[in-house]
């Protein structure tokens, strides 16, 4: 019986040691430590204001998920080469994941083939890029948005009105699908449209003097410039694509008649949330963000309140 007692005491000793390891050390049961993730976002713009809404969503999510973000614009000119340099620099740094809105999808894809970027995972914004390094994309349906804006214009357009569509040369590639879809939609309604690509702001100096009566900014820069040039007496209608504070202000005061817009705040939020999911080992897939065509008259509609005036 002494043997049985010995075994019982040995079992008790083993149990005490195991319980001590479980309860008082982190060898087996580890306290969940909230890791601070580091994420770099490299956009295809030199103007931070064009990403203001995205940044709001991004910062909100970063705050909720304990993420340290580094938002990088191309202050030295918009080109894929400049962006590639910024991406490579961030990859060398301590960023755990790179979120890129490429200037030129094709060139970015080629860059990814040539560079390992320290095997850091990449998420693309607004564009889909075919590469093993790109885990997923967060984007919107450009064709659908072009169609939505085209239909809104067609609804407002009078007979024989023509449409001028302007786009910054640096963003032409990005909004190509949008422009094509917009033109096709307008054409389907029997509205003629001209696409004009500009390089310098001066080229738009007298744009509103043109014979067209409807002007569309296919990107935020063009939309903003068109709104700034419109006088109160001008009867030309201005439509835009994209969102920033200036565009919303002009939409609210009626200078802009309507915009096609992606819920950029949600996009920013979902981008960070998905990046965190990826870093936590979850599988993520491509995301399509909601988009809207908002006429000036609907600016205070409850439906668009969080898109146009997100609570900061």
């Amino acid at each position, binding site marked *: *019986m002494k043997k*049985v007692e010995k075994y019982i005491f040995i079992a008790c000793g083993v149990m005490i040691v195991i*319980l001590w390891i479980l309860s*008082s050390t982190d060898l087996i*049961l*580890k306290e969940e430590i909230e890791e601070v993730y580091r994420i770099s976002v490299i956009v295809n713009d030199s103007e931070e204001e064009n990403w203001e809404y995205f940044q709001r969503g991004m910062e909100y999510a970063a705050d909720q998920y304990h993420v340290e973000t580094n938002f990088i614009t191309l202050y030295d000119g918009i080109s894929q080469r400049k962006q590639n340099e910024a991406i490579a620099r961030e990859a060398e740094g301590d960023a755990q994941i790179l979120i890129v809105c490429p200037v030129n999808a094709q060139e970015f894809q080629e860059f990814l083939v040539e560079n390992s970027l320290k095997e850091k995972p990449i998420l693309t914004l607004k564009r889909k890029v075919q590469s093993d390094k790109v885990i997923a994309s967060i984007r919107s349906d450009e064709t659908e948005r072009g169609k939505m804006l085209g239909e809104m214009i067609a609804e407002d357009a009078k007979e024989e009105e023509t449409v001028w569509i302007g786009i910054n040369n640096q963003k032409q590639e990005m909004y190509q699908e949008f422009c094509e879809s917009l033109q096709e939609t307008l054409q389907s309604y029997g509205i003629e449209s001209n696409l004009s690509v500009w390089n310098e702001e001066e080229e738009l100096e007298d744009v509103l003097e043109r014979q067209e009566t409807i002007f569309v900014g296919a990107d935020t820069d063009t939309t903003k410039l068109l709104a700034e040039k419109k006088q109160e007496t001008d009867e030309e209608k201005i439509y835009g694509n994209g969102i920033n504070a200036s565009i*919303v202000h002009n939409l*609210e005061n009626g200078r802009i008649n309507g915009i096609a817009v992606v819920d950029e705040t949600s996009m920013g939020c979902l981008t960070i949330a998905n990046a965190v999911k990826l870093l936590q080992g979850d599988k993520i897939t491509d995301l399509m963000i909601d988009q809207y065509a908002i006429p000036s008259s609907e600016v*205070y509609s409850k439906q668009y309140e969080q898109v146009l005036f997100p*609570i900061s």
Partner: protein
Amino acid sequence: MGREIKKIKHSLQDILKNWSFRYVLWLSFSIVSVMITVVIGMFMNFQYSRRIDELMEEQIAASVSQASVPLYSHIRSMLKASDALYYNVIREAHFPEDSVYDEFKLVCEINPDTIESIALFDDEGNLLEASPPAILNEWVDVQEEEWFQAAIQENENVHFLDPKVQNLYMASNESYNWVIPMSRAVQIHYNDETIQGVLLINLQYSWIESIFDNTDLSNINVAILNEDGETIYDPRQRLVSLGLEEDLTEIFREQPNKDGNFIYHLNGKQYLASSRTIGYTGWKIIGVGLDQEGSISSVKGRLFVLMLFVILLTILLILNVYISNKICLPIQELVLHVHEIEEGNLDETINVSGSKEICQLGFAISQMKYVIKNLMKDIVMEYEQKRKTELDALQSQINPHFLYNTLDIIVWMIENEQQEEAVKVVMSLGRLFRISLSQGKRIIRLKNEIEHVTNYLMIQQVRFKNKFEYFISMEEELGEMATLKLIIQPIVENAIYHGMEYMYGDGEIQINVTQQGEDIWIAVQDNGPGMTQEMVKALEAGKVVESTKRGSGIGVRNVQERIQMQFGRKYGLFIESELDVGTTVTIKIPAIPYESWEGSLE
């Protein structure tokens, strides 16, 4: 049922039969200890869980309370400001001549972090006064605004509306702030008429955020809902709307009147919630925290408590071993003593320590042992006495026999007128009897026995007219050894009668006393006619030989029995004989000094 219980009882009894008392005791204590520990452990676990929940509930309730106090306080301040503006400023003013701008501005400046703007409208929605100065937004129809309609429709109340983007005035810059409209109906003196108007105080939405920023909300989600369950403030609202997080306020939306502290389940998780209604507004401030029951820290806490219980249990088991040993060792000691007694060792001293009962038991066994020992001693003494009586009886068989023979010799000598020889014989006989008597001793010195046999031989030599010679050899120191008396004489007597009777001067009787190891060998050798082997065997077996010649072996048998009775069966007589050669009878006795015998057996 009863049969089953009996069966179990019998099985238990069968098992217990094979277990030691100590083990049964230890096992019983241990089972009781384990049961007590488990019961206490379960109780503690229950208390621990309850306390964790209570703490969590208290923390949530405290956070909700912590946030609700300043919120309520600010709302009361705003109501007071509204009352002050209405009763002290607006009711005293006559529009459009009077201006209340300065008073509005003052209130705004006093509450820069709370009030976004103050405006006064007439019943048609025309702006009468505003601070800071602003131009109404042409897109906005004031009369259609919710705050305006609420004030007009329920003109006795102050209304707090849902947050919205400030769109009433044209934005001076590109910033659009979120505000919480607070409106009330007011009576306005306008052009000597009293008309109804609406006082609108836009509260900054960021003011609510700042209240929660100053509240400890670790692990707690807070939100403010209106009386319809719609969100006024929820930092997680966008995550919820995007499907990234669960809507923890759902239960409050479904049951807007739910109040107090309670537990609810959502998607398999248990949440602790607390809600408190904010007076005047109908808002409800709620706090929701995930039950920490399954968290790592909670599990670790439980495991730590479990470890303490295992340690406690181990200590109890060790104590059980100590106690059961303390109780059982004296009993086991007692059992060993009983075994010793069983094996006949009655000299063992019984020293039993332990409890009173065990000591009493030990004492009783000890007493019993003494009784047994005394009884056995009595039995042995009785046996000894009996044996002595038997020996004496055997010895007494010799004396008449020898006396008969000796007297026969003396008679023969007197008949043959051999008086001198007869005197010698009588004297020898006297010495013989003196030694025979030996003060009644059965054990005498070997030298006395030899002297005795020498006297006897001398008598017989006279009797047999020197038909034989005798020789006795013995080392002097052997004379001090102990021997039964009268063991050589019967053998010598037989040698004379059976071996020398028909000799004619050439007979020889030789007595040699030697020591071989621990034994003394006394050999009586004659050169008589000898015996057949059958006779030798019969004599060694102690049988009485039917013979026509003198002697029937009684003397030999007596010597044999006496020696074996005294010294054991390994001692006695050994006879070797060969016809026409002679006979040697050897007596084997233990070599024991007479001193060590004296007084022991006598």
